[in-house]
């Protein structure tokens, strides 16, 4: 399921971009430059490095791989995988597949929206969590499910989902102390 996209405030993304290490792109560019059909693998590579598609990185890829920036933007905004703005440390993917929907996945998104104070597709101010809806995680028999990183949590209700988030918050605080 496509995530509702928020328009990025240009100022914000520029300041983040200046701290980027664009040298990280060199291997990726070497691997894909000149090959036909390299647009999506390049964008996927950039996102793997930075977690999103920073403007500065897109400019560099455009220059060195000879791709048009407007084509890159067109592809990046077409596919739901690509993000044009930074995301939180933990991405919460709430499954809204058919099986999860009939088992009340909507209630989980509602509860998380309230607990995190963000809407679907947004990131918390402390850059800790991004809340997303996804089409199907393929664990329909555990419905309703959500996924954070590689971990899947199944047979949830709103309260249980909020508890998962609380546990992560506590773990993060312990690590910081």
């Amino acid at each position, binding site marked *: *399921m*496509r995530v509702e996209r928020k328009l990025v405030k240009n100022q914000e993304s520029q300041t983040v971009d200046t701290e980027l290490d664009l040298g990280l792109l060199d291997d990726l560019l070497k691997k894909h430059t000149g090959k*036909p*059909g*390299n*647009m*999506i*693998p390049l*964008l*996927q590579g950039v996102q793997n490095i930075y977690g999103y598609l920073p403007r500065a990185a897109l400019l560099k890829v455009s220059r060195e791989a000879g791709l048009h920036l407007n*084509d890159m933007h*067109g*592809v990046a905004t*077409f*596919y*739901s*995988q*690509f993000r044009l703005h930074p995301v939180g440390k933990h991405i919460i993917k709430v499954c*809204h*597949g*058919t*099986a999860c*929907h*009939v*088992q009340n996945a909507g209630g989980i998104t509602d509860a998380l929206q309230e607990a995190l104070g963000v809407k679907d597709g947004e990131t918390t101010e402390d850059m800790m969590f991004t809340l997303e809806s*996804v*089409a*199907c*995680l*393929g*664990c*329909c*028999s*555990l*419905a309703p*499910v959500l996924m954070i990183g590689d971990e*899947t949590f*199944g047979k949830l209700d709103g309260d249980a989902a909020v508890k998962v988030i609380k546990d992560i918050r506590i773990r993060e605080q312990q690590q910081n102390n």
Partner: protein
Amino acid sequence: MKKTVTVGLGSCGIAAGAEKVFKKIQALKEADGLDIAIQKTSCVGMCYNEPLVEIQDDTGYFMYGHVDEKSIVAIMEEHIRNGNPVRDQVVLSDLFETGDASFMEGQVKIALRNCGYMDPESLEEAEKREAYQAIGKILENKVSREEVVEEVIRSGLRGRGGGGFPAGLKWRFALRNKADQKYVICNADEGDPGAFMDRSLVEGDPHTVLEGMIIAGYATGATQGIIYCRAEYPLAIKRLNIAIQQARKNGYLGKDILGHKGTDFDIFVKEGAGAFVCGEETALMASVEGKRGMPRKRPPFPAESGLWEKPTNINNVETFANIPWIILKGAEKFAAYGTEKSKGTKVFALAGKINHGGLVEVPMGITINDIIFKLGGGIQKGKEFKAVQLGGPSGGCIPAYLAHTSIDYDSVNATGAIMGSGGLVVMDETTCMVDMARFFLDFTQKESCGKCTFCRIGTKRMLEILHRITIGEGEKGDIEKLEELAYQIKDNSLCGLGQTAPNPVLTTIKYFRDEYEAHIVEKKCPALSCKELLTYEVIPDKCTGCRVCAIKCPVNAIDGEKKKVHVIRQDDCIRCGDCYNRCRFEAISVR
């Protein structure tokens, strides 16, 4: 015989905690010096019992369900050390009857023949289970390309991705178009919410999919294969890449396959980037070329001008998985299963309000009732079976009274649904059909690529109407408006997404018109599912005045003193249902 402990490590098993169980077994083996072999396998289809652990000893096999880190300790102690199987936790065994045996009976496994029975990351085990023998047989006996195509046509195999076009005919078109380069593409972009057949197949038996593609490559004269797989399936991609490496190393892929001079076929995996429309073949090819995944007009069909304008043959994962079996066992044996026009078997992903959710492979011609009640174990919590949704967002709802419908392409199409790729979601009395239609349309509306006006704007307008209906703002004439829009969208869209997007709405109107009318006229949701249309009230005779509901109410909309009957202030109630769920005296009514 050494005792073997096998853990099911498919995505569904891992999600349920199988990885932890696997590590625990390894730790127990080391700590106690147990003389056992530990193996990995993939999903055997019994997703509702995950995590699954199978123990095989001299007496037979024992499949344990719902195993966790704690219970595995007891099972290992009792079964491995003391030799006493823990019968209560065994869900399947060849020694005694279990309640779950019905799940396996009635299944015929062709595409899934190896899933859950071997380590998907081991070529050796795959070879023991006949991997690459079909392509070996073809090359050894110098079977011509035409003969391979003929064999597939005779098997009657139809495309399992949903379209149902005869696979062999597709191959023949690709074979007859001459070109310096041809391609074979495996469509593993399973975007349909509620379907996971392709994922399980690729995770459980990647070599069979590769072999199917190699055979297609030989039959059509293609030298390059591409698997287009969803990026959301990391484990599937990993296992495919492992299998490709193994196949290359052992001479199944690359130049001179199995030493036969002049043969050449290689495969790489292309990760999709998340767009449902890329399941459509022309959109998929645009995506492989690195463009926005938008469909184009056909003809020319891919067999004539496909990827990079070269002849291309595209089949779905399940279609390819059937091919090696057909070549090895013969087209007649495959065609012996199924109905006159739909041959062989079909894999279904059972989900929703069903007791035995998971993956099943059944011969065509079985009825929906048999799948749900014999294999699927019936409806959860003893509720009433209302409808089944077949074919995902492109399909439709089939009501309970038509559940005697036979599963084959033509019978299913006659109901207004489609076979689709095999998602089968069961709904009970608490599922609102209007909400269901809205859910699917919400999905297709977001996934519409935007090329055709009717699909782009029409689905949006339909969604708005459906949304109004579910919040009690439906108007007279809405149903007719929905139908008119639906037919316009079907007639004026270029690709399958638009042509089928209105199906969930049309079938629910056809079979559950009274539910639409209840929403529009009476402003009621008969399934008690649409929040905005519900009223929660205290039943005075049953209320004990315990104050639980008043305390739990998130908006403080419940008044009442201790030991006195409470009242819900309707203006403030947000209809969250917390009071209804928490009351221990069933003193809250909802209607």
